[in-house]
Each structure stands twice: as structure tokens, then as C-alpha cells.
């Protein structure tokens, strides 16, 4: 007698994603993206330390449209990981761990992270950045 196919546990493609699952996975993905971003940070500093020509190369790449897309991704990743990290720290201290609150703060983090990143870019494009120059 052929063995019956064993039941398989549902996986990511089967589940209806709760927001807590999405934010958890996004936290990890933005963490990995930000790790890559440290290379950009190191490049920025080494370019600044290496003289005008090296810095102009960096500025040129950063201002190009692919550079701006990467920088927006970096900005949003930082905003998300920061906000969701605060949510994690609150959980570690025992706050907001019940399901309705976790769902609500999950959506809050998603919306706020987009607003923060878009807000930073809006300020920059409106010429309101550069106040430390």
C-alpha cells in the first residue's frame, strides 16, 4: 500500500499575511539593506577625506537618479528599522504585546516610516535641507 501523502504545514505563500508577520520580515530585510548601506556611509566619509575630486565623484553618483533611488531606499529602511526597533524594545519591556495593539502599532510603523522618508526627501527637494552646511 502506497503511503498517504503527509500533510504539509502551510508556508509563506499560503498564509494570509498578518501585519505583524509583514513587519517582522521587513525588519530583517531592512536590517540587511542597512548593512549594505554602511558601505555607502564608508564611501561618503572616505571620499570626503580624499579630496575634492573624490568627493565630486561621490556627489555625482548620489545625485544621479539611480543614486537617489538607492538613497531613498536607505532612508526608508532606516526610518522603518528605527521605528520598528522602538516597537521591539517596547515589547521586550512588556508593553503592547497583545494582538490588537501589535497590529495597530504595526500599521503605525509602516505609515510613519513612509511619511518620514518621504518627508525627508520633500524637505531636501524643497531646498530646506543643507542647514548644517
Amino acid at each position, binding site marked *: 500500500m502506497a503511503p498517504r501523502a503527509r500533510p504539509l504545514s502551510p508556508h509563506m505563500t499560503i498564509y494570509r499575511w498578518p501585519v505583524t508577520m509583514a513587519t517582522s520580515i521587513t525588519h530583517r530585510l531592512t536590517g540587511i539593506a542597512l548593512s549594505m548601506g*554602511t558601505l555607502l556611509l564608508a564611501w561618503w566619509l572616505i571620499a570626503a577625506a580624499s*579630496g575634492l575630486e573624490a568627493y565630486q565623484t561621490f556627489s555625482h553618483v548620489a545625485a544621479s537618479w539611480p543614486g537617489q533611488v538607492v538613497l531613498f531606499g536607505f532612508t526608508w529602511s532606516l526610518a522603518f528599522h528605527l521605528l520598528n526597533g522602538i516597537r521591539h524594545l517596547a515589547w521586550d519591556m512588556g508593553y503592547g504585546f497583545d494582538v490588537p495593539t501589535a497590529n495597530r502599532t504595526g500599521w503605525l510603523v509602516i505609515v510613519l516610516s513612509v511619511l518620514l522618508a518621504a518627508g525627508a526627501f520633500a524637505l531636501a527637494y524643497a531646498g530646506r*535641507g*543643507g542647514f548644517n552646511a
Partner: protein
Amino acid sequence: MSMETPLHRVQGLGASHSGVKHFWRQRMTAAALVPLSIWFAWAVLGLVGAGEAQVLGFIARSLNGPVAIPLNAILLGAFIVILLYHMVLGLQMVVDDYVHHNGGKIFLMLFIRAGTFAVGAVSLYALLTICRTV
């Protein structure tokens, strides 16, 4: 052969052999990074469109006082060191979760730590160079 009893060896350490060290350090670096990354975002937004000279000026700017302290460079250095520490702890979690081959795990962690060390060394060297030349 160890003279420790197995109970003493495992007390407070558990299956990870390092107890809650990793968990605790990840939380402490995270807490430190909350204000530091907000400061970093403010600093970078304030340097949008700035030229090389202005960026160098901001990084090397000294607080006036009895001792001139390059506060921005110090904060940037602290941000980078704590960020990289937090990053290694986080990437280690990813490797522990998804890499099941022990050799691969060790190789990847060595690679990550070597790369992180390089990024940190280059960044801090750049900061020092900027502070010494401006």
C-alpha cells in the same frame, strides 16, 4: 579535562553557550542607536547639497570651550562603531537562522566580521583624517 561540573558549566548559559549576552547586547546597542540615528538623519539632511568644504567643516567643527571638542566627529564615530556592532549581532541571527551547515556558518561569520572590521577601520580612519586636516 575540565574540573568543572557539567552543572556549573551550563549554569546561566543554556544551549547557545553564551547565555543572554547576544540578546542583551543587541538590545543595548539598539537603545543607543535610537538617539544616534535620529542625530545622524538630522546631520545628513542638513548636508544635502553641501560641497566638500562644507561637509568637512561640519564633521570637524569644534565646540568652543576650554577644550575644543569635535562633537560631530565624535558622534559620527560613536554612531558608526555602535551601528557596526549592532549589525554584526543582527547578521549573526540571520546566519544562525538560515545557514544549517556548520562550516558555512563559520565561514560566513568570519566573512561578515572581516568585512565589518574593514568598513569600521576605513570610516574611522577617514574621520581622523578629516579632523587632522581641516
